[in-house]
């Protein structure tokens, strides 16, 4: 932060900042912080359709955890996150290493690469649904050429899960790649030249220069992609609706269906608390990683 020495600043310094911030802070408190608290409160209530609520303690939690379907929802969320992160981060890192510094038409390619990130999720879900259509979808045809069998992709639980992971991978890959490429681009070229003078080969340069200096970027992008995937309900809902059966019903989709289609608000709120806890666990994990990464690179 820079210090302000202009005389007039001191006069204003005390009142104005609050005046400038008050509208947005009030909004954030009323529509983000308070709902967060009342969401936790709602999870301890049983709310009937007429709007009458009674306090039931941990009953919603007990009922959900005791449910086979909900335990499967949680497992699928972990699988979904692991699948998307496991695919997009390593591949995007490799791609970022490949393209950094070699981008002659940088702006042009950056814009093209980032389009999946801009595309409306419901639209890309429709595109993917038509690509796996059993009668004319190109992915169905490709799969038939490889396996010799014509699958109805969205009716097969494993293939449906792979479809939602593939779709998220398509949406996040280029974001991760450009994020990491921006990180790699900040490494001064002198370090590489010094390493070369010391006789370090390509692999040694990666291990001792590129990787340690981009650890922080890796941790941040891992966090961002994980959070996006954990809370993603709309692309999965638009692609499979959670089906066939419950085989792609990740936790966020379960929340969406319970709260906004079946209007079971107490279940919705309780699953919301579970999602928040899941996010908190991931955040703690990555922040820990980042702190350690920060120490190592110094």
């Amino acid at each position, binding site marked *: 932060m*820079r210090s*302000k020495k*202009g005389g*007039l600043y001191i006069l204003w310094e*005390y009142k*104005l*900042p*609050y005046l400038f*911030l008050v509208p*947005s802070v009030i*909004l*954030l408190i009323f529509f*983000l912080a*308070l*709902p*967060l608290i*009342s*969401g936790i409160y*709602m999870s301890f209530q049983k709310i009937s359709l007429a709007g009458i609520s009674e306090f039931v303690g941990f009953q919603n939690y007990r009922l959900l955890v005791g449910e086979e379907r909900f335990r499967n929802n949680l497992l699928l969320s972990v699988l979904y996150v692991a699948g998307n992160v496991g695919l997009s981060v390593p591949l995007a890192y490799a791609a970022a290493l490949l393209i950094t510094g*070699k981008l002659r038409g940088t702006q042009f*390619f950056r*814009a093209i*690469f*980032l*389009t*999946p990130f*801009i*595309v*409306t*999720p*419901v*639209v890309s879900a*429709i*595109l993917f649904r*038509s*690509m796996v*259509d059993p009668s*004319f979808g*190109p992915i169905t045809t490709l799969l038939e050429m490889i396996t010799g069998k014509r699958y109805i992709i969205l009716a097969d639980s494993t293939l449906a899960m792979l479809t939602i992971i593939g779709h998220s991978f398509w949406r996040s*890959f*280029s974001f991760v790649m*450009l*994020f990491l490429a921006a*990180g790699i681009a900040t490494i001064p070229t002198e370090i590489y030249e010094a390493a070369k003078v010391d006789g370090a080969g390509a692999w040694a340069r990666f291990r001792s220069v590129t990787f340690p200096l981009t650890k922080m*970027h890796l941790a941040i992008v891992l966090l*961002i992609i994980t*959070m996006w995937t954990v*809370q993603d*309900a*709309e692309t999965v809902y*638009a692609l499979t609706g959670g089906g066939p059966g419950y085989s792609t019903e990740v936790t966020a989709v379960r*929340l*969406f269906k319970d*709260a*906004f289609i079946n209007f079971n608000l107490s279940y919705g709120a309780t*699953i*919301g608390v579970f*999602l*928040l806890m899941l996010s908190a666990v991931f*955040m703690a994990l990555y922040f820990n990683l980042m702190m350690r990464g920060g120490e190592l690179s110094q």
Partner: protein
Amino acid sequence: MKAKDTISWIGFFLISIFVLFPLFWGIRTSLSPRYESSFIPSRLTLEHYQSLFTRPAFLFYFRNSLIVTLGAVGFTLPLALSGGYALARFNFPGKRFGILLLIFPLLPAIAILVPLVSYMYKLGVYDSFIALILTNSVFNMPFALWMLRNFILNTPVEIEEAALLDGCSRIGALCRIALPLMLPGMIAVILFVFITTWNNYLYASALTSSLSVRVLPQGLLSFIGTWGMYWEGLCAAGMLTLIPPLVLFLVFQKWFIAGLFSQWSR
């Protein structure tokens, strides 16, 4: 050196195919006659686009989406601008909590949506444009604020100080000197709010129930229900849905990308 270049170019090429194939497929399907099963259609037709314009539903949802999106942009920008200015230029107690703005966008919005629905119900705005504009604005506010804070931090404070010493009022200095300098940041924020609001399906489906306030992503999903697997028409509707965000993105991508990626490194 030459071999390395070739590998990079092959990489570029493969990534471009991967990234663009679904979009290419969407254009191909929207232009091909019905039940065309070969990869390259025998002829191209505009009938699916024409049929969209003869049905009132699509244009109606398009209009609704525009209202909500422009509303959210108009609502978020002034608030984020004044808040971001305060965070960048003033020192005051509690300022360090500003970092929370970067954590909020990562939290699962869907978890807050359940209580928010009953809030909106009590406020009497459930199932209205106001609820949609408010929700989209609030959920985009933290990141928008943070983006503008960083942009303002990067514009030199000395220019404002000089204007102040020359006798401009604080507000006058802000409007005439600082605002034009913040234009790239404002464009990035406008695009960010526009694209996320335009694309959002979740808040709309949670906060509305009647047809009259339905936005495009909801409309598209409902078409699957009413049209069945009419992929040609669905792809045509999808391609038209993509036009506003894609055009804005392609025109202003330089500022948008800079705004998007520089936020986490500070």
